[in-house]
């Protein structure tokens, strides 16, 4: 009896100790269904084998649903998610609300200084990094080299809007179903307004002056919108007012667009021979300018952040550090090839000799480097963000403005009417918001 009691105690203690050693922490990761994210889900065994005490749960949602869902959870401190995929628009706004955990204490080997300065700047608030970029993107011109050659033209590496208009005219052959240029027309702050805000920068237009007065009544905005309408009405595909990224991707892949100015991440899709009928004919150029020193390209980074309500912050940091590390890049390259590594985040990636061979690598880097979120347009502005204004009110306002511009593209109103309405509604909303 005397012997069995200690033995029992020892066994129970051993079992408890064993359980403690293998106590699993589950971290829930909310993400969008983009190719790079899905690839990451497929490679997480590398992480879980190195961290057997951490279990990963994935919640994949459509972009707008995800944004609404995580905002709701973070604002109510629901603690449903430990890691979230968010963009450069949310990071500064949420960081200022103290909704995000600072990532300044990620391990030294994670190498913060290796992150591209333009991307890092967009994710830093008060010298604190609040999100780790998973992949970064800008926008650029993707064009058909064969159609340009047929027209006897050559695309400059850094074209102007005039040159784009001439190229669009030369490549358009509506009888054959080929349209010189495909651009976003679908209403939304992340759809047509992302493109038009970036394009407006190259015309010297801005959303607000230094006193937060809306600027849609300026000549610069009129020039931007008139050029856009001319391009789309003369050389664009029919029904363009409902075209977003995916619709244009599909048109370009089917050989119906001479040019497409959109996210750099599209480069890997349009050059993929499995899905694209024009894979071998695609060339790249910087987004156009208008001789004012600013190009019409945007800057965006899908990033991993940790909400302040998470009860597994340390484990979440381990995951974020793994997913955005140089080692992860190497892991993707080993498994899926260099063309499929998440682009646009690290300087070291663009110094890699193997990656330099990827046809769109250099143009992606140059596009990212030519966007400056703190100084997006010609004149000074009171906000940060290239294709957005990093204030909470922007998403709502820009979606309404986008609807006016989309209606103009659909022929329901004139450019002047659309700009007048945009000016009035933005002024109202900003006044109501207390600016």
């Amino acid at each position, binding site marked *: 009896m005397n012997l069995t009691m200690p033995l029992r105690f020892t066994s129970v203690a051993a079992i408890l100790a064993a359980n403690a050693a293998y106590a699993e922490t589950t971290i829930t990761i909310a993400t969008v269904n983009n190719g790079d994210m*899905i690839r990451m889900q497929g490679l997480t065994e590398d992480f879980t084998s190195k961290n057997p005490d951490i279990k990963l749960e994935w919640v994949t949602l459509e972009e707008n*649903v995800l944004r609404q869902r995580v905002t709701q959870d973070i604002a109510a401190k629901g603690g449903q998610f430990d890691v979230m995929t968010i963009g450069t628009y949310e990071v500064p706004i949420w960081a200022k609300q103290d909704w995000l955990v600072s990532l300044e204490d990620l391990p030294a080997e994670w190498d913060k200084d290796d992150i591209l300065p333009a991307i890092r700047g967009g994710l830093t608030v008060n010298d604190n990094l609040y999100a780790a970029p998973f992949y970064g993107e800008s926008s650029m011109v993707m064009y058909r080299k064969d159609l340009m050659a047929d027209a006897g033209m050559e695309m400059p590496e850094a074209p102007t809007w005039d040159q784009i208009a001439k190229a669009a005219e030369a490549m358009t052959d509506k009888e054959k179903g080929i349209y010189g240029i495909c651009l976003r027309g679908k209403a939304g702050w992340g759809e047509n307004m992302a493109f038009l805000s970036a394009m407006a920068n190259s015309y010297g237009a801005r959303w607000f002056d230094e006193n937060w007065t809306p600027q849609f009544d300026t000549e610069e905005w009129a020039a931007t919108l008139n050029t856009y309408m001319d391009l789309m009405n003369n050389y664009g595909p029919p029904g363009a007012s409902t075209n977003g990224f995916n619709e244009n991707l599909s048109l370009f892949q089917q050989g119906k667009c001479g040019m497409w100015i959109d996210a750099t991440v599209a480069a890997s899709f349009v050059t993929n021979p499995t899905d694209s009928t024009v894979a071998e004919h695609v060339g790249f150029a910087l987004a156009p300018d208008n001789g004012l020193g600013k190009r019409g390209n945007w800057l965006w980074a899908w990033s991993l952040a940790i909400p302040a309500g998470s009860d597994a912050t340390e484990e979440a940091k381990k995951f974020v550090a793994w997913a955005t590390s140089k080692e992860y890049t190497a892991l993707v390259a080993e498994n899926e090839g260099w063309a499929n590594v998440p682009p646009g985040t690290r300087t070291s990636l663009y110094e890699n000799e193997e990656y330099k061979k990827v046809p769109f690598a250099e143009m992606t880097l140059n596009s990212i480097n030519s966007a400056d979120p703190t100084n997006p347009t010609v004149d000074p502005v009171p906000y940060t963000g290239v294709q957005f204004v990093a204030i909470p009110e922007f998403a709502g306002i820009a979606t309404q403005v986008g609807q006016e511009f989309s209606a103009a593209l659909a022929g329901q109103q004139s450019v002047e009417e659309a700009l007048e309405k945009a000016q009035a509604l933005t002024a109202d909303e900003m006044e109501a918001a207390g600016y």
Partner: protein
Amino acid sequence: MARSVTTQRKIINTAAAWGIGFLIFFPILWTILTSFKTEATAIADPPVFLAFDWTLENYEVVLERSNYARFLWNSVFIAGGSTLLGLIIAIPAAWSMAFVPSRRTKDILLWMLSTKMLPAVGVLYPIYLIFIKMGLLDSRIGLTVVLMLINLPIIVWMLYTYFREIPGEILEASRMDGATLKDEILYVLTPMAVPGIASTLLLNFILAWNEAFWTLNLTAAKAAPLTAFIASYSSPEGLFYAKLSAASTMAIAPILILGWFSQKQLVRGLTFGAVK
């Protein structure tokens, strides 16, 4: 002559019925067809109807990427649980309203229905906060209760309408024979109202199965049903139509099969009392 007109009309009516039926069913058919295409064929212009290389690749990808069984089980649990719970509460409620109405019964019925007129998003935040406090976020139990409450007015209304068709004298007779209230509801009323209860059950199961607002907003990883499974296949950057169609087909298949086998009860339930 009259006979030939009737035949002609019959043909026209039948053709029109089939035409309308096909038109209504077409989006589902197109989804099913798209699920067997490649992403490139799914977006082909002009669209390809049947002459394409059929592939099961999308189903393979979807099954590999998502834990379909877990989503399915959550859907079955939440839809089934909320319907059964709703019936347990609604049968006595509808009985009292149908057989022992008070002066305010009509008002109560209308008030119950009026809760359906409030947009769901209007109460999202309070419910979310209650769920946080009670630890019910991302739990099947929490979602079951919410869906039951949301569908309860419809269940009560449907049962009330069926119960009203049953002559009160039969219940009186059972009381004369010494039946207690429990006996009366369980052994007399319920067996007579089985078709009505069955169609209510089916309709509410379908409503709960398809509910996509609360199921998306109150779940994360553990309790997410098939609605969340579908939502995970839409992408802002990249083509996804074929895989989304495969996910949708897998999500609607169980309810489509259930609907197919129970269509008689469903039609009877929905048209009950329509013609008097």
